[in-house]
């Protein structure tokens, strides 16, 4: 009896604290959304106005009139490209790491772990020179090429742990039933690990979606640029145009937010089994 009341108190306290934390942590983003619906007069009002008095769509209209759609589409192209290439390059080594033993296996695994520790900024100049040399500077495919050294290693780490979690006996059964290795992989392994693969793919997509430094420096034509570059234009040294900046930010954050929330189950388990088991 005493034990169960104690547990109840613990639970209630947990809920109260979680609600408090939710309010504190969500506040910055809620504030951004509220600000995006205020007129400039209300944004720069003193004392501060918390709820917009008459909600305005002027900043959203402004953003739309600046061809936000083109930046959005560019971001989708770069994101999907990064996702496809990371998965294509990453899926086979991940499978090999999980199933076979071969020469240089541990060295290659270490390389995978080390590669995700390189800060992006240090490769910016060599990357620029390299893309210029192979004539891919200021192209989407060039930017995708610049992203995959950073997304593929983490893809391999996650996928390897997904493949490890599939019992070997499943494949062996398929092999005995007369499937060859490719068929066994396609029919047995792939369906089981598909949610995990999708989650990793989305991770690579969102990496490209939110990346600022490379996209800003490697894409110079306006018609090719991505959302983060679009947003950075509103941040001035002396004056920042908060209204359109925040309206654009809401547009930019909604897709990853929705996808993350829908796939959160796979993310949390996948991300963690990948990183914790290493």
């Amino acid at each position, binding site marked *: 009896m005493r034990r169960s009341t104690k547990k109840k108190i613990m639970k209630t306290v947990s809920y109260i*604290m979680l609600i408090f934390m939710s309010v504190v942590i969500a506040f910055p983003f809620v*504030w*951004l959304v509220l600000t995006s619906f205020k007129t400039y007069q209300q944004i720069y009002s003193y004392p501060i106005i918390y709820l917009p008095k008459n909600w305005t769509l002027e900043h959203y209209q402004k953003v739309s009139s600046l061809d936000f759609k083109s930046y959005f589409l560019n971001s989708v192209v770069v994101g999907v490209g990064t996702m496809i290439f990371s998965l294509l390059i990453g899926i086979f080594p991940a499978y090999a790491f999980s199933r076979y033993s071969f020469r240089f296996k541990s060295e290659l695994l270490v390389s995978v772990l080390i590669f995700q520790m390189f800060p992006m900024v240090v490769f910016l100049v060599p990357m620029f020179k390299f893309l210029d040399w192979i004539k891919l500077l200021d192209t989407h495919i060039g930017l995708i090429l610049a992203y*995959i050294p950073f997304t*593929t290693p983490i893809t391999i780490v996650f996928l390897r742990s997904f493949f490890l979690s599939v019992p070997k006996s499943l494949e062996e059964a398929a092999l005995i039933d007369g499937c060859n290795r490719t068929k066994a992989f396609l029919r047995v392994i792939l369906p089981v690990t598909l949610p995990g693969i999708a989650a990793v793919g989305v991770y690579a997509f969102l990496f490209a979606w939110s990346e600022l430094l490379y996209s800003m420096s490697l894409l110079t034509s306006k018609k090719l640029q991505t959302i983060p570059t679009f947003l950075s234009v509103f941040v001035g040294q002396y004056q920042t145009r908060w209204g359109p900046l925040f309206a654009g930010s809401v547009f930019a954050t909604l897709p990853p937010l929705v996808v993350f929330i829908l796939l959160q189950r796979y993310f*949390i388990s996948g991300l*963690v089994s990948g990183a914790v088991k290493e």
Partner: protein
Amino acid sequence: MKEEKIALRMVMPYVLIIVAFVVLLLISNIVMSFSTIDGKFTFENYKAIFTDNVFYKSVFNTCIWVFGSVAGQILLGLLIALLLTQIKRGQVFFRSVILILPWATLDIVAGVMWKWMYNDMYGVLNDILVKIGLAKDYIAWLATPKMAMLAVIIANIWKGFCLSGMFFIAGIQTIPQELYEAAEIDGANAYRRFWNVTIPQLKPVLITTLMFTIIWTINYFPLIYVMTGGGPNYGTETIVTYIYRLSLRFLEYNKAAALSNILFVIVFTIAYLFTRRMAKEVAA
């Protein structure tokens, strides 16, 4: 033998594209760091770094930035993970709001959002602090080096704690329930159970998370870039923002390459120390 052939064929694209690419970039960086502008061999770039006051300042700032951010992220992540594993109903909602929302926010969006909240005149943070009595007067958050550093660290804790939170959730879920029951029978209260069961059981996850958080924080760049640009008066200049400034503002590519290589050495030393400790613990 046949298996090895299949495996090597599967790994080949990774080796040919990613490994070759990264090695090429690394070599290019090393060559640049030992070159003059005309391409002659020199140690001058490294000498220039080690006689540069901003370099020492940036190393010092990086230490504070990493210590503050990592301590905050680990503690907040642990607290959230403990709370979230206590409850059953509302998991999806709380996870979405507390863990997913900051994670899904784009780096640049997080930067401008906090910059606006820190605004000394129209910022909502000052208004709230004064209203609840935590501050007497409006604070000029981004105007002095010390406050600016505090401000970017707070923003970074918000942006990054969700990762350690997720690691800890998974870690806590793997702790066998019997350990808690046994401790409870022995008369351990919740506080004792936390220190004697949760923390020791969580230690491997804790160490891994610590390593990743430290390295990611050293490398993390967009937030400072958007909020302060490294200022005021180099107050938030970390090694990575300095590399950025050297190469893209001052166009001193070779000096930037030298600093990049120094940063590699620092990062890999940290990674080596952690993995050696982990290997030792596994062996023991």
